[in-house]
């Protein structure tokens, strides 16, 4: 899971944090949680598609 966490953090930091401020504000925290869920959805979709292609 290490690799997944690292890539997800990079992508979601880039998407959700415009100019970094003095704290993670509320909208940034929500964006990170949502981005994380969508990234895992995407990972699962990709995994399923690739797997069925290999059959």
């Amino acid at each position, binding site marked *: 899971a290490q*690799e*997944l966490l690292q*890539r997800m953090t990079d*992508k*979601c930091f880039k*998407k959700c944090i415009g100019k970094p401020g003095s704290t993670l504000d509320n909208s940034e925290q929500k*964006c990170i949680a*949502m*981005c994380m*869920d*969508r*990234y895992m*959805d*995407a*990972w699962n*979709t*990709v*995994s399923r*598609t*690739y*797997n069925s*292609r*290999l059959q």
Partner: protein
Amino acid sequence: QQKAQFQAQVHNFTDICWDKCVDSPGSKLDYRTETCLVSCVERFIDTTLAITNRFTQMVQKGAH
């Protein structure tokens, strides 16, 4: 080890297709984004095959 290779590819595809298909992550993975992700993986594999085949032909003809 085959599983590790499979997962490495999934990480790689997700990285590329995330940038192609997801603008701003919403509260659900909508249908449009999901379709885009599936096509992105399929077309990436097609591209890999097209390039590999063409490259093999070139090498066999000694064109490279």
